[in-house]
């Protein structure tokens, strides 16, 4: 079985996000970029399936600016076998919407015929939480989102999902789309020798046009603003004062 893993290049999760003064978006110029953390979990899960003998090949795919090839090299250094870069934007500030990403991925999947797609449940930039579900819809495949545990059992996958009330286990027909939640695994760090080896692994480059997908956005960004700041209150010296303050406010 071949496993396809879509990965996104996003602002590094440790970087403080700054909204641009003109309200046009978040400043991404000269900012450290990394692989979306949920996608790292997805890559790790795919590699573990290969190590367990349940998958033969892991293919990483990224859609966005040309620099996303760095993100793909990270996936290759972690253990993916090859990568496909689909250049769909010239400017790092141009986010390709999940619907367009899903349409391009469908084109890739029609060619590659994987048995399983593992994606991150959401990207930490637009926080959409949508690409996996949309891709499953376009392919007419089953979907198992917010995975906490994944087990492949012949032509089915058994997936434990993180839901509001706790954990739900479902059984989905393969081929399937699985999206990774935080507790699915702890991704490995790429070792230096593997980083060197990754440089020699195949990385194909294509464009959105190759798949006949129009990536122009459906959602026009009117403005981007800072959230209303919450003012710090007061420090209290002890529990008695805290209890008195809360009683004064009529909360307890």
């Amino acid at each position, binding site marked *: 079985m071949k496993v396809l893993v879509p990965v996104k290049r996003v602002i590094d999760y440790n970087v403080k996000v700054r909204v641009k003064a003109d309200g046009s978006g978040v400043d991404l110029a000269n900012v450290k970029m990394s692989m979306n953390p949920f996608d790292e979990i997805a890559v790790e899960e795919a590699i573990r399936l290969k190590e367990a003998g349940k998958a033969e090949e892991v293919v990483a795919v990224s859609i966005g600016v040309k620099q996303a090839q760095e993100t793909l090299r990270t996936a290759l250094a972690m253990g993916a076998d090859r990568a496909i870069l689909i250049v769909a934007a010239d400017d790092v500030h141009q986010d390709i919407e999940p619907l367009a990403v899903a349409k391009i991925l469908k084109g890739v999947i029609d060619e590659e015929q994987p048995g399983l797609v593992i994606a991150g449940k959401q990207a930490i930039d637009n926080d959409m939480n949508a690409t996996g579900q949309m891709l499953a819809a376009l392919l007419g495949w089953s979907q198992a989102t917010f995975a906490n545990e994944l087990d492949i059992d012949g032509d089915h996958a058994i997936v434990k999902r993180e839901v509001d009330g706790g954990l739900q286990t479902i059984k989905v027909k393969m081929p399937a789309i699985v999206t990774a939640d935080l*507790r699915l695994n702890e991704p490995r760090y790429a070792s230096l020798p593997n980083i060197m080896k990754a440089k020699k692994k195949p990385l194909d480059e294509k464009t959105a046009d190759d798949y006949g997908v129009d990536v122009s956005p459906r959602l026009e960004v009117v403005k981007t603003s800072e959230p209303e700041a919450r003012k710090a209150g007061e420090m209290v010296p002890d529990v008695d004062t805290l209890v008195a303050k809360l009683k004064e406010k009529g909360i*307890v």
Partner: protein
Amino acid sequence: MAVLLLAEINDGELAMDATAKAVSAVKSLGDVTILAAGASAKAAAEAAAKIDGVAKVLVAEDDLYGHRLAEPVSALIVSLAGDYSHIVAPATTDAKNIMPRVAALLDSMILTDVSAVVDADTFERPIYAGNAIQTVKSKDEKKVMTIRTSTFDAAGEGGSASVEETATAEDPGLSEWVEDAMAESDRPELTSAGVVVSGGRGVGSKEDFAIIEKLADKLGAAVGASRAAVDSGYAPNDWQVGQTGKVVAPELYVAVGISGAIQHLAGMKDSKVIVAINKDEEAPIFQVADYGLVGDLFQIVPELTEKL
């Protein structure tokens, strides 16, 4: 314009708070029709018919919808979509799973976690873990969206909408439910609780989380946790408060041993009053807290539990 709203139903029971908040978010957009889908959904439909601003309730009762799997529920919504300009649901994990699938089937771009409705085409939603708020204008004919309920007040009760049965859609036959491991608890539900007490990495172990639970029980509160506490195995995943967990806005939020990472703040900063207890006086949580207390949580929390 007309709105179709997927009610949140768990085991045949309507989640009134989430559903009524979603109704109040969208009722300016047109007549609101609620879809009550489940293995048993009639009682939930009757309850939803009482929400102010609801014009009609459609009931789709079938075992197929019992566990609200994405494939059959999206097929159902798409079969009904023709009459509506907006298709919405409160942003629960069920809806986050279902609605993007619906949107793609309708060739619309989903709008998730909508925190404000500006007009029929324009909406606000938080991005970058709540570090920025984006206003977007949708060019799609049909808007499909999930509502971040914590920013809306629940619509009142007192309506009497008509309740009609609707035809079920075909079973795509792609997925089956196996089992649920749901926490049984007498405590209020986290996203609708008036008071929430949350513990973080500072609590130190699963066993020590008992002191958080004791304080919560004294206050009649729900228990929450930071991502760090859940990742460390101190608390179950369904307690996680934050951008990728649950978003809460109670009257009182007590953060114990939580440093206040951005992604946690995104999940609780709309709380009316925030109390922070932490041994590190530099912890970022104090910058959003109304009342901060620096010290050892193992002394402070039991003392607070006793004195409240």
